[in-house]
Every structure is written in structure tokens, then in C-alpha cells.
């Protein structure tokens, strides 16, 4: 009975009306972002910051996103950028999380080459249009949503050392500080991009660079007798800063700001040779289960208000070029103006990826 009623109703609508409505619906679906369909899907698994940043990312990004879209986010707080990419590769694009929230340019470039990350456009993530133009020279166009911009700064213990000025003060510490720095220098395994960037600065001090790392190895060899601590992860360095063993180090600007604001007797500075910038990028693996909501999450991370709040909370720079109302004392150590962006180096991550194994081997041979 019900079936016949429906059939009857359909007969009342003319063929032209049906075509018009279908065309209208199609046009709307093409034009609209995924927000409407995303509401119907309830759970999103996001792999992003953990540890001391877990509370921060949940408070500033995840909980407000859940509230706005009426969905549930499962926060996977495990792994580093390369570990997360290893999971994506091992699972052939279906690692169990919908958003790889914390990849760095070398993994993003590799992900694009291996076809394991979804290609994005402004249709899926409309806020991509607000990013710095330079973004797409660092990672392939539409390969992800860079949501955080920071750099490898230099930090030093104010109670132990006078202010350094150059990367040479870290790489050849005895020249400025003498033997008192013996055992108080930290070095990082090149598995950490921080180490790679610091080595690039070492190479540049000897007129080298990513294409010629020989000057870096000479400086690493000279620095070795002064090194007291060697770690891989950035977070592993913190206890050594706190217990007074490490006095000078390259360190991510975001983490530096965070720990200094909590009482670490260190100061962060930009050496006279400049710094190398790093984008944290959120990507969608090709095998993600809830892609539409994942795109919504990426778009939300690039929302102007979220970007502003995240930058202030995480001591990093927004990746949008149109956030101009941040406090002056904050922007002095950030990358928020065209001039600051122009001064920041972004070495070719493709070259870094291709050479990282050999650089790591060389580093291991010298440090062994």
C-alpha cells in the first residue's frame, strides 16, 4: 500500500522538474564544502601531538571541533612523523587513523611519490587558499594542510653562558666559551629533522649546504669532544636542559617557547645566519575511512581563529598569511610578516629525503 502511494506521489512531479532539481542538487554538491555530509559521519581518528602537548591540542583544536560538528574524535597521540609515515606505508595507506596530523615535508613528499596521501584542493579544504604562497614550494601543491610553522632556533642557558650570536658558537663552542663547555653540548641523531637542519647550518658556515655537507662533517668532528649528551627525540633533551647538563642547543622554536614560559632558565634566539623553517602538515592517508570528516578537520585546523589561538598556545607561527593581529612581543620571534618569511630558509626536502640515510651513516661513524 505504501509503495503504491509513493509511486503515485512520484507521478505528480514532472520530468522537467526532476531534471531541474537534480541539476540543482548536483551543482550544490560540487560547490559546497564537505561540511554537510560530514555531519552524518560520527567518528574521526586523528593522529597528532601527544605528551606534554596532548592537553593543548585537545583543548584548542579537538574538543572545539567535536563541539562544532557534533562528532567524536579519537585522539591517537603515538609516534613521530617518520614513525607515523612508516605505519601509513606498512598499512598501504590505511594505518587506522583518518588524519596524519603531524607529518613533516620529507614524509609528505615521500607520501605523494608513493601515492599514499590524498591530494587536496580548495574544494575539500577551502582554507588552503589562505596559506603563504611559499608553502607549495616546500611541499607539493595540495599534498596536505600545513597548520603550524616553526623553526630550528638556538637556545642557551642564561646562567651558564653569555649570549651566542652565530651557529658557529654551537658548532665550535670552544672558540667562544673555552673548555668550560666540555660535556655541556648536546647533539641530535639525524633521525630528528632538528639535527639535519643544524647540520645544514654547519655546512653553510663552511660555504656548503644540502648539496655539499662536507663542511658539516668537519664541524661535527671538531664539536664531538665537547658533546656530553646525544639524543634522538626533541623531548628527550628537556631533562638535560633542566638538570643543567646542556648549556647550548639547536631547538624547535615552539618547544623552546613552551619550556621557557614554564621557567626553564634558557633564552631562545635567531642566530645571525638565520634559521630554517619547518611546517607541520596534516594529511589524509588514501585508505582513511572517514575522508570527508578528515577534510573538515584539516579545514578547521586552518580556520583563522583556530590558527591564531593555536599559534599563541603552542608558541609557533600561523601558516595563514592573513593573521596580522598577534601581539607584537609574540611576533618578534615568529614568522608572520613577508619579511620574516623571506628571511626563513626552507631547504629542499626532496634532497634531504634522498640523502638522509647517507648523512645519518656519516653522523653515526663520526659520533661512534
Amino acid at each position, binding site marked *: 500500500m505504501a509503495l503504491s502511494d509513493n509511486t503515485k506521489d512520484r507521478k505528480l512531479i514532472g520530468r522537467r522538474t526532476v531534471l531541474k532539481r537534480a541539476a540543482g542538487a548536483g551543482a550544490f554538491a560540487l560547490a559546497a564544502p564537505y561540511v554537510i555530509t560530514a555531519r552524518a559521519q560520527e567518528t574521526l581518528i586523528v593522529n597528532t601531538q601527544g605528551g606534554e602537548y596532548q592537553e593543548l591540542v585537545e583543548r584548542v583544536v579537538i574538543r572545539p571541533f567535536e563541539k562544532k560538528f557534533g562528532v567524536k574524535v579519537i585522539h591517537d597521540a603515538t609516534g613521530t612523523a617518520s614513525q607515523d609515515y612508516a605505519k601509513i606505508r606498512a598499512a598501504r595507506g590505511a594505518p587506522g587513523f583518518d588524519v596524519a596530523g603531524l607529518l613533516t615535508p620529507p*614524509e609528505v613528499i*615521500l607520501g605523494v611519490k608513493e601515492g599514499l596521501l590524498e591530494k587536496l584542493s580548495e574544494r575539500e579544504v577551502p582554507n588552503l587558499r589562505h596559506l603563504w604562497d611559499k608553502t607549495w614550494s616546500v611541499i607539493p601543491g595540495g599534498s596536505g594542510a600545513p597548520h603550524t610553522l616553526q623553526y630550528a632556533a638556538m637556545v642557551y642557558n642564561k646562567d651558564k653562558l653569555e649570549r651566542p650570536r652565530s651557529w658557529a658558537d654551537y658548532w665550535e663552542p670552544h672558540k667562544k666559551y673555552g673548555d668550560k663547555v666540555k660535556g655541556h653540548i648536546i647533539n641530535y*641523531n639525524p633521525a630528528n629533522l632538528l639535527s639535519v637542519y643544524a647540520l645544514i647550518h654547519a655546512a653553510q658556515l663552511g660555504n656548503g649546504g644540502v648539496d655539499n655537507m662536507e663542511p658539516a662533517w668537519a664541524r661535527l668532528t671538531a664539536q664531538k669532544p665537547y658533546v656530553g649528551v*646525544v639524543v634522538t627525540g626533541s623531548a628527550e633533551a628537556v631533562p638535560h636542559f633542566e638538570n643543567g647538563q646542556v648549556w647550548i642547543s639547536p631547538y624547535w622554536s615552539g618547544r623552546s617557547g613552551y619550556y621557557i614560559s614554564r621557567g626553564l632558565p634558557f633564552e631562545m634566539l635567531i642566530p645571525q645566519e638565520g634559521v630554517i623553517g619547518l611546517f607541520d602538515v596534516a594529511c589524509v592517508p588514501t585508505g582513511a575511512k572517514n575522508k570527508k570528516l578528515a577534510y573538515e578537520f584539516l579545514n578547521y585546523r586552518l580556520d583563522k581563529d583556530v590558527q591564531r589561538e593555536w599559534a599563541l598556545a603552542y608558541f609557533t607561527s600561523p601558516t595563514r598569511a592573513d593573521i596580522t593581529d598577534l601581539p607584537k612581543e609574540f611576533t618578534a620571534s615568529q614568522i608572520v610578516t613577508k619579511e620574516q618569511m623571506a628571511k626563513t630558509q626552507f631547504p629542499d626536502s626532496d634532497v634531504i629525503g634522498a640523502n638522509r*640515510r647517507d648523512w645519518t651513516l656519516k653522523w*653515526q661513524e663520526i659520533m661512534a
Partner: protein
Amino acid sequence: MAVLLVFFALPNALLLSTSFLKSEAQQLTSELTLENYGFLFSRSLYIGAFIRTFAVGVAVGLLDVLLGYPLAYFLVRTRSRFKGLLIALALAPLLASVVVRTYGWYIILNRFGVANDLLLGLGLIEERIAFMPSTAAIVVGLAHALLPYTVLTIMGSLNGINPNLELAAMSLGASRTRTFFSVVLPLSLPGIAGGFILTFSIAISAYATPAILGGPATQMMATAIYGFMTQLLDWSIGAALAMILIICSLLLLYAAARFGARQAAL
């Protein structure tokens, strides 16, 4: 058999095939090559890691047998009414994660750790000593973490010895010491061998302890494999290194099993 095929043979076959694939700029290609093995055997760094891995395995195995045997003997022979509690205490370290136990050693052994504070306080040293990162620290950490396995294995063997054999030896005039060395020790050899093999096998594949208590100069195979697989994303070299570890371990375990079988037959 099917379970063994799916969860052991198949993954290892995949690993073996990957170890013969060429990798270019972190990407696996379909080109077959022996370069990965050539790369590892031509670098003193990895030959050193290989030798260190097996040396650490032997050292941990021996240390645990030396420490575990008296403890196991005591736990088996004690008539204390707290015997159950004592056994539980001996095995209690297994209740904590190996990472937690290793960080305990980190707190003791680091330059600003308890050991240095104690030695400085007693005036035995003038400058702090770098006990770690070092191979010795890895051996100590692993020996502590794996001791309960040796104790359990040797206890099983000692429990299986008929007490009447010892009484018979002593009734024939043998001293306690001679009875131990002539009767108990030979009969408990399978337990000793089992305990050694178990700790050796776990030690050579250990990751957490060498990663925490070691450094770039004390790299072991598991830490190197982890580095290639998840940090450098170079799966070809990582797979080749893993295959070397697996094949050498299987060969050594096979030799140990043959030796054990021969001893049992005697």
C-alpha cells in the same frame, strides 16, 4: 602448523624478499640486488653492531645464569613458610614494563644519577663518571630485566631432580659440596642451558634497553633495524639487517638445541 605459516614464515618471507630489493631515495623499487647486504658488510659500524649484539647476548646469558642459579636453588630448597612470597618477590620485576625498569637504571647510572652522587658523596671520585651510554650499562639493564626468566627456567629444572639422589650421594659419603657438583649441577644443566638460551634470545633482539642506556657508539642490531625502518624509512637495508639477525639467531638456537639434545642423551 597453519598458524606458524601465517604468523612466522609468511612475514619472514616478505622480509627476506624486501631485503633483496633496491631502494632509491627511501622508495622500494622492483629491482633485485645484493647491494643491501654488501652495504651492511662493508661498514664497520654495522659489523660492530652485529658483534656487539651477540657479545651482549652472551654476557647477559652468562650473568643471568650466574646470578639466577643461586637464587633459584635457594627458592627451590628453602623451607621458609614465606616460600611463596619469596618466589613472588623474585618474579615481581616482570610485573613492571621493561621500559620502566630500564629507566630505573637510567636514574641510577646517568652522569647526574644516584651512582655518581653516592661515589662523590663518599669521596671515591672527584669528577662525575659517564656510566652511560655504554655497552656495560646495556648488559646491566638487560641482565636485570631478564633475570626472572632464568630463575624460572632453572627452578623448573631443579624441581625435577629427585631429592633422594642427593640423599643417596651423601649417604655414600659425599660432602654437600661434592653432592652439589657431582649430582645437582649436572642434572640441572638442561635448566641452565634453557635459561641461557632464553635470555640470550631475548637480549639479542632487545630494543628498549639498548635504546635508553646506549648511544650512537653502542648501537645494537635491533636499534639499527628500528632506525632504518621507522626513522630513515629505508626498508631494504632494515630488512637485510633483520634477516641477518634472524638467520644468525636461528642457527645459534639450532646449535644450542642440538647440544642440549646430545647432553640429554648422555
